[in-house]
């Protein structure tokens, strides 16, 4: 896999506070990396260093092999960056602003017009091209920022909360746009919306307190949820006690909890193992009058909250 973003031991201190603490990761072509973390975890600081806006205290970041500090112009040429918040000149129109960015990026004449047209279409800005950016809604401002990041069809895209302020339809559009562009790019997206990560990202990094605390696929991380692959049975309450004992005796079962006031049993497996076949077979052979049998899936949100301290870690069993 071609390494398009390489971050090594990246550290940023602001006085006594270490905002980013020896963060290392690499992103390859075709990857969409979801960059998660609570507010203040160091997400934006990391992205600012990657984009060459902030100088790291130590460590390095490279874009397409160009060190961001040593060869900033080459690195920035390969990079499309959407900073957090509104960041385009408020007095300019989207057309004027995109024209400026395209010119700085080295496009002239017909090529520039073509680039602007493509970016405008991708970000759906046709209707507001001549309005001062100042007068646009938050969603449009965000899309102006997105359009300027795409204008040179960069190999690396760094998007800090690209869907912030967008309505659900626009969020969906942006997600689809990111997926459509992913094949030949390396994309880093920070967000607070975990469904977005599950829907669009091929990989997730969670950072908390300036350190990388988890790195994996969305499905892999979700599987860390203790409820992952647990089986919920809804059955005749009178059979619950018997069923509970028999289920608890199955191989690979960690615990059986009574839920829904005795009308349901939640069978939790050891190490997220899949037990649905065994439990199904047992339920069929017993007179429990099972009305529902459902496999639970781990949720990224639970894992996120556990890892980043929003939820206590489950007690070791």
């Amino acid at each position, binding site marked *: 896999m071609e390494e398009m973003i390489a971050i090594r031991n990246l550290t940023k201190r602001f006085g006594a506070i270490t905002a980013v603490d020896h963060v290392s990761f690499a992103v390859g072509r075709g990857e969409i990396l979801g960059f998660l973390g609570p507010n203040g975890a160091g997400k934006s600081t990391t992205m*600012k260093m990657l*984009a*060459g*806006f*902030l100088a790291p205290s130590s460590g390095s970041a490279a874009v397409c092999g160009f060190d961001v500090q040593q060869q*900033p*112009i*080459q690195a*920035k*040429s390969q*990079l499309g*960056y959407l*900073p957090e*918040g*509104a*960041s*385009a*000149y*408020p*007095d*300019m129109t989207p057309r*004027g602003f995109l024209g*400026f*960015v395209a*010119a*700085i*990026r*080295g496009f002239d004449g017909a090529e520039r017009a073509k680039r602007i047209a493509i970016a405008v279409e991708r970000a759906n800005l046709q209707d507001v091209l001549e309005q001062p950016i100042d007068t646009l809604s938050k969603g449009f401002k965000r899309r102006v*920022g997105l359009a*300027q990041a795409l204008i040179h069809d960069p190999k690396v895209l760094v998007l800090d909360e690209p869907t912030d302020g967008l309505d659900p339809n626009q969020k969906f559009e942006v997600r689809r746009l990111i997926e459509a562009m992913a094949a030949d790019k390396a994309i880093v997206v920070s967000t607070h919306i975990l469904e977005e990560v599950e829907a669009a990202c091929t990989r997730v990094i969670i950072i908390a307190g300036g350190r990388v605390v988890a790195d994996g696929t969305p499905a892999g991380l979700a599987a860390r949820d203790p409820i992952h692959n647990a089986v919920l049975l809804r059955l005749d309450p009178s059979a619950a006690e018997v069923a509970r004992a028999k289920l608890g005796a199955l191989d690979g079962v960690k615990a059986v909890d009574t839920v829904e006031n005795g009308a349901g049993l939640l069978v939790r497996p050891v190490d997220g193992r899949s037990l649905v076949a065994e439990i199904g077979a047992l339920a069929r052979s017993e007179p429990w009058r099972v009305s529902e049998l459902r496999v639970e899936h781990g949720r990224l949100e639970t894992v996120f909250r556990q890892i980043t301290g929003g939820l206590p870690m489950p007690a070791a069993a």
Partner: protein
Amino acid sequence: MRATWIIFRRELAAYFATPLAYVFIVVFLVLAGSLTFFLGGFFDRGQADLQPFFTFHPWLYLFLIPAIAMRLWAEERKTGTIELFLTLPVTTAQAVLGKFLAAWVFCGIALALTFPLWLTVNVLGEPDNGVILASYIGSWLMAGAFLAIGAAVSALTKNQVIAFVVAAVLCFLLTVSGSSVVLGFFTGWAPQIVVDTIASFSFISHFTSVMRGVIDLKDMVYFISLIVFFLFANTAIVELKKAD
């Protein structure tokens, strides 16, 4: 060069996208005109020259130029546009130079719009147009020096009011250091070389000699080296403070 040129064009256009440019130009022309006629005694002197006009330029620039310069970097930092701007493939030096040149050319436009005064003296008499041209060039260079100081100060803060006040004070010190009040304070007890050094830092002493029609290399070097020095300082300050 290309990036500087593109930044220059955007910045210059930005002046005219808001009322700022028009307000500034009108205020400048009204003040320059009234100072010339009322305080300068343009008609009473009975001489066909523009000396009463140029004499007031250092004092006019003292507060008008910091008003132009204060927004250059403070506004970018306040609104956050600096983050996108400086993550484009441009160097900080190109950004500093592009912004400065746009502001300087804008001052040049305001200055050039005083041409009716020049027409007036040419109708009323036969002025030495060489002297007038030299004075215009000198005045524009002096504006550039004020501007470079103001731009560097603007990069120090997110607050435009602070940028304005600090730049105005710095420019004031550099202006009055050649006045008879300041020099008189030092003359007598300080060695002559100290007095001369203080005087040589003054905008006024350099501008006065240009106004006499003498384009002396010394005065040119003074203004240009001030500009270059403060543009370097500006670049260093932006590098240091951009992300604060």
